[in-house]
Structure formats: C-alpha cells, structure tokens
C-alpha cells in the first residue's frame, strides 16, 4: 500500500514488511500499534512496507505468509515473523530484537 518512515540518507537498519488482510478493525489496530512502536523505538532506523494480501496475493506466497496480520522483519538478521495484532508490545520488541531500556516507563498501555 504505502510506506512508513525511513527518511534517513543511509539505508534503514530495519526493513519491515507488514501483511494485513483488508481494512478490518484488526488491520487498523495492527497498523496503529506498529506505527507507535516504530515511533518510540526505531524512530529513523526503519523502512516499513505495508501489503494488503487481498490486493497482492502473490506476495503472500512469496513471503510465506500464513497468518494475518504478519509483520516480517527482513533485516537485521535473523528473519522474524511477528504474527498477531502486535498488541503485546514486549513480544513485538523481542521479535524485532529490541529490548526496551531498563525501567523504561515510557511505554505504558494506551
């Protein structure tokens, strides 16, 4: 569909691809969750592509998508698939290989 941040001159450290199934409330919620996490933890270090698998089904096969939504972390290695609506932030961060700063009080639930 469209791209998120990635304004930095050098290639972004985090290449992310989010697969959603249409514009369901769950898809909306997932995008919001991801945007917020990226803003807080990966400010300028990521490049996000959002794919609607209804629109581009061939990409689902190419990237081995089974569940929806699926967030694919292509870089840095290792490859990770983070499935679900990304509401469990701690697990999302673990999946992305980011560990929140100790005693980090800046990520309360919204």
């Amino acid at each position, binding site marked *: 569909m469209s791209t998120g941040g990635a304004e930095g001159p050098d290639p972004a450290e985090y290449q992310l691809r989010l697969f959603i199934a249409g514009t369901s409330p769950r898809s909306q919620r997932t995008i919001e969750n991801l945007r917020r996490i990226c803003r807080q933890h990966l400010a300028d270090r990521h490049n996000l592509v959002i794919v609607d698998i209804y629109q581009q*089904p061939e990409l689902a096969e190419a990237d081995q998508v089974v569940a929806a939504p699926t967030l694919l972390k292509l870089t840095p290695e290792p490859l990770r698939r983070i499935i679900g609506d990304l509401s469990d932030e701690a697990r999302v961060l*673990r999946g992305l290989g980011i560990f929140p700063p100790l005693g980090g009080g800046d990520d309360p639930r919204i």
Partner: protein
Amino acid sequence: MTSERTTASLPKARTGIDGFDDVTFGGLPAGRPSLVCGSAGCGKTLFATTFLVNGATLFDEPGVFMSFEERAEDLAANVASLGYDLNGLVETGKIAVDHVKVERSEIEETGEYDLEGLFIRLGYAVDTIKAKRVVLDTIETLFAGLSDAAVLRSELRRLFAWLKDRGLTAIITGERGEGQLTRQGLEEYVSDCVVLLDNRVEDQITTRRLRIVKYRGSAHGTNEYPFLIDEQGISVLPVTAADLSYDVSNEVVSTGVESLDAMFGPGGLFQGASVLISGSAGTGKTTISSHTIDAACTRGERCMSFVFEESGEQICRNARSVGLDLHRHVDTGLLRFEAARPSLYGLEMHLARMHRDIEQFRPSVVVIDPISALRGPEVELQATLLRMVDMLKARGITAVFTSLRTDGAFGQSGDLGLSSLMDVWIKLQDIEANGERSRTLYVIKARGMSHSNQVREFQMSSAGLKLVDAYIGPAGVLTGTARIVQEAQEEAAALRRRQDSERRKRDVVRRRLSIERQIAELRASLETAEEEETLLLDEDVARETLLSSERTDIARRRSAAE
C-alpha cells in the same frame, strides 16, 4: 440400480487409483473435503499426489497441492519414482504446488490473528489454474508452528467450509494420533469421507491396507483392502465379491497333454476352470503346467505365470527338456512370467500384485507355481487363496495351481483347504516299488464332467508327456518295470495258452482222422464179409440146384428102369 441412484445423489470425483474408485463406487465426494489419515510412511502423500496428478492428466481437473511438510522440489522428486512429471504439470498450469513453511523459531505471536494468509494463498493458487482439486498435506503441521490451538481449530473449520463453498474436491492428510484417527482430531471437522491408510508389519512382512472409515451419503466397501505402491503407482485391491455370480463357459480347452485330455469326458477342461495339480517333489507338476501354457499360447491366447521358486528363464530351459519351446511365446509377448520370492511381500501384497498384473495383461490362462510356496497364518492364507481363486474365476481365466505336498498322504494339511475351491484336481503320486520310482497321475475330481477313474502312469521324455495305462490287476497297481515285467509275464502266459489250444486242436484233428481211418477199415471188412456171404449163398444155391438136378436125374433114371 442402487449404485446409480447413489451416484446421482452424490457426485463423485474419480481418483483414478486402481480399485479405490470401485471400493467407493466412484471416488471421493466431489466438491467436498476428504480426510486421508495414517501413520508415518503409509502413503498419504503419495495417495494425495496420485489423486491430483490423475485429476490433471485423466479427468481434466487441475489441482493445487499445498504442502506443509515437503518442499516443491522434494515432492516432485519423490513422485518422479512413480512416473509422475510434477514439474511438467506445474509448467503447463495443470498443477500448482505451494509449500507452506511454518517455522516455529521464526515466529513471535503478539496478539490476535487468523489464517487469512493461508486462505488467500490457496484461493490465489486455485484461481490461477482454475483448480477443481486441492490437497492439503499435512495441515496439522500448523499446530506445531503456531501455539494458539483454539484459533487454529476455528480457522481449520472455516477452511474446510471454505473448500466446500468453493466446490473443491479436497484431500486433507493427517497423521495418526493416539486413540484417534488424527493427532488434532481433524476427523471431527471433515465429516464427509475419511480414509484410513495402514502399514502393518506381521512376521517381518509389511502389508499396506486401506479402509474407508466413513463416507457420508454413499455406500462403500467396509473391509480393509490391501493396497500396493510400486513403480506403477498405487493400486487398491477390491477383494472378494460377495456373490458367486460369474459367467461360466462351456468351452473346452486342452491341457496340452493329449492323453490327459482324454481322461476328461469332453476331451479337456472347461474354460475358466480352476485346476489344482498337487504332488510331492519331482512328480512333474511344473512340467504339466508348462504343457498347458504351451497349448494356450499356441492357440494364440495370452498366458501369465506367477512363479515363486524358479525364474521364468529356468522354467523355459527346463521345459525344453520335454520338447517344449516356451521361449518363443515369451518373445511374441503371449507369455509373461512374474517371478517373485514368496517372502518378498505379504500375502495380501502378492494378491494385490497379481490382481494388478492380471488386470493389465488380461491373460486367459494363469499359472501359479507353486501356490504352496505362499506362507502365512493359516486363516489368512486360506482367505487369500479364496480371493485369488475368486478373482480368477470372476474373469473367466483358466487357472492352474500347483501345490507341493510334503508327504504322499492324502492329508488335509497338504491341500491348504484349496480342494473344495477347485474345479479340477489332478493328483500326481510317486509309486515306489522294486527299487524304482514311477510317476502316476489320477484325476480326483472334475466338476461338471465325467472323468476317468483310473490311475495312469505318466512318462516324461524329450518327446513330451505321455500317459500310459497303469497295470491294475489282482496283484495291485503296478507301474514302471514291475508293470513291464507283469506285462511280459502275461504275454508269455498268453502265448502258452495259445500254443496249448493249437496243440489241442491238432490232437482233435489227428484223433478224428484215426477214427475215420478205423471206420474205413471196418467198412472194408464189412464189405469183405458181405462179399463172402454172397459167395457162400451162391454156392449154396448152386449146390441146391445141383442136388435137385441129381435127384431129378435119379428119378428119371429110376423110372426108366421100371
């Protein structure tokens, strides 16, 4: 009638798997998912692939193979051994293969999700090639990759409903679980048709079996059917037909041994008869069956020989010693040998293999040599043989079974319970006497025809088989040299008798002559006596005449003196 009605009410998609479509009266339920389950290595994937490949090549129904375990390349390589060109079919758009990889270590679950990705992939593949068939092999792998079983279950339920809505004929494979058919109880969701594959090892021999656990809305065979996987694909053997309604033939075929044919009233065997030739080692069972083969092939009929103890080459060579050239029949394609060690497969497998070979070759004569080589639990053995005979009879094939008996007795154990199944039973027996062994043959039974009740001695030579009437007399049955000696003795006695009677005849003639001579002599002396008598009488008359004349003279003289 019923099957027609069933077919009408429930459309079926043929699998093209030999026998399976017969057992299910037409195939899998069309437009619905079916579950094929079984333990590891029992042939689920192969079954499913065959279903797809046959759909694409035989029935013009493209198919999607969604593999959760094997990669597309591996899959193609695996089924290449069956002669399926999966890659070629993929290229021509007949089959689409999608490998769904779910790697637990890569996955982090962070909230609600569903399996829409899977649906879309499947839907996309189906639309791309306009598929009518779908295989999901083995979808339960998802349970290993994803932890939310509740979501998976509801999604699978949705998936099966989706398949049904789209009218796709699907096979879902499942690994056999503890106490249930599949690990995750998929049979609860797939309710239309469940096929269970099984691979059992008994006495170190594996037999594959297939059973239709349920088939909603359709009649189906309920037995466990053996099936076979080899280089020619999968074949299921539908076993015994329940009834014994085969067509019978009144045509008579030769056994190949002229003098043996003569022992049967019509001058041979009925076409389609099952013939048992039993005898101990070296009595000539194979030689007789070789004659039958030769006769059939010479008539231009196809002939198939299943041999369990020798190779086809060996039988050809041995047959040459009795003047038969079986090799030329092999060359013309009329004769086919199928040699296999009895222990190579289980009984069921042998039967399945024979069934398939017979279906392909369509012989009119089948020889099984020897049937006694097949070993197994007695009950199973008998059932297998029964079905074998049944199968051959149903096709009107003349079958010759040879059976080795380890002793010369009439024992029950020797005939494998076969005798009652057989139409004709020819028994060969060695008779040992006078330090030699000779072969004898008799027909114990021949259904529906009169047959000789005599024991014949049979001789094998380079000119072929020949039956000789054995000597049966007050001293018993004599064969071999004893028969020859006895025959010589009888001949001598006959000669003696002949000579005696001639001598007696000569005596009579001689006596008659001498009597006649005596009669002649007597008659001669009678004549002499008669002559003498006449002579004497004449003298008497002459004397009387003289006396009277003298008296007259005297009287005259006396009167003259007076």
